[in-house]
């Protein structure tokens, strides 16, 4: 949901009428994907999410449904609820396919015997589902607040230095990178979606550097490959000083398409 807020610019007070106004578009809804095999009877956390303002939830019962949803839509976080071992296994599985996704596991048993070192290694947040409703409510609210994004990001206009501009609905990242690499381009691709911004730097038709949030190199390329929504533009001649990718484009393409196939296999597509 988008809210439009209109506010006066500073410096327009006094006798001069306030004609100059700024329109700030704020995305206020946090979208959560919740994997819960028994959402009708095991609904303690779901009831808490229901009562949160500006939180939209989508509930799925199986991992394959979750992967299908994650491929098709953007979610701010993935919540896995269930028995400790199974929930962690499902969260770890999701992590392999969605490296930048925020994942929390709601499990009854937080002991190291049950969870091991997996949560740390896979960057999965663990929350006990057996605590009091009040405690769980507090922890979940803290988690949801941590997901709130900086607002008011201005939309980019058409800049003459963008030699290629497009939409990921029409061309996938793989297609446009393939085209640019084949024509031996050097420059920077910027991809903008509701998941965030990412950049891929090319040099003479090879990927030199890629960055998305805290991810760099091949893992960032892998993430961008999955995007199906968003915009991109290319700026000719911008070269990265940093090199985080050193494999030929063809290898990256094959590996990432294979990974994508593996992800699609999970949903039985």
């Amino acid at each position, binding site marked *: 949901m988008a809210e439009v807020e209109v506010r006066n610019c500073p410096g327009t007070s006094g006798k001069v009428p306030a004609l100059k106004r700024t329109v700030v578009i704020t995305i206020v809804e946090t979208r959560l994907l919740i994997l819960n095999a028994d*959402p009708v009877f095991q609904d303690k956390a779901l*009831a808490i999410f*229901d009562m949160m303002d500006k939180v939209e939830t989508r*509930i799925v019962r199986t991992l394959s449904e979750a992967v299908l949803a994650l491929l098709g839509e953007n979610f701010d976080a993935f919540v896995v609820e269930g028995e400790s071992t199974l929930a962690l296994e499902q969260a770890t599985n999701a992590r392999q396919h969605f490296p930048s996704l925020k994942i929390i596991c709601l499990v009854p048993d937080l002991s190291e015997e049950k969870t091991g070192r997996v949560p740390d290694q896979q960057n999965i947040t663990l929350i006990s589902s057996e605590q009091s409703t009040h405690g769980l409510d507090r922890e979940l609210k803290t988690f949801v607040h941590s997901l709130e994004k900086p607002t008011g990001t201005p939309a980019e206009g058409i800049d003459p230095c963008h030699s290629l501009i497009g939409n990921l609905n029409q061309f996938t990242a793989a297609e446009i990178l393939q085209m640019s690499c084949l024509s031996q381009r050097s420059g920077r691709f910027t991809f903008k979606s509701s998941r965030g911004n990412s950049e891929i730097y090319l040099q003479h038709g090879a990927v030199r550097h890629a960055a998305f949030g805290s991810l760099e190199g091949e893992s960032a390329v892998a993430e961008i490959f999955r995007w199906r929504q968003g915009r991109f533009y290319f700026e000719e001649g911008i070269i990265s000083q940093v090199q985080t990718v050193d494999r030929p484009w063809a290898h990256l393409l094959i590996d990432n398409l294979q990974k994508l196939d593996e992800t699609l296999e999970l949903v039985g597509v």
Partner: protein
Amino acid sequence: MKDKELETKLRLLTLQLDNWKRLHDLITYGLDKAKPIISSEQERLFTEIRANLLQETEHVFKKLNVLGELSGKAMNVLQRASSVRGVRELSGDEIRRMETEWNMVFTKLGVVQGQLKGLRKDLAGRTFLGYQLNLLLGRLTPAH
């Protein structure tokens, strides 16, 4: 403001409707003679959806106050539709009856969902204090 009971009902209803839709998709597939192959994956999915409906229907209908009206019809559908292959082998009469009963369940649930969403919309513009005052003064039907 949000009403806890109302939000719970809407969540349960959404899950229930989702299962009824998916069951219908598979029944429709089973009845389509132009599609001769029924995979084991489709049968597995059908059994899973049916199992979810069997264990959850009564609880959800009770919460929504439609147990008396819909329970029998829902059970008839679930008993007739034992598998995708089973649906294919039903007689014309049984298929018609099953489709009519599925439609009755689906229509009623859709109507209730609309009513609850309307109530949620009304509540969204109210404060907790205003809501309680209106309840006291009898101007608003409670959500539960």
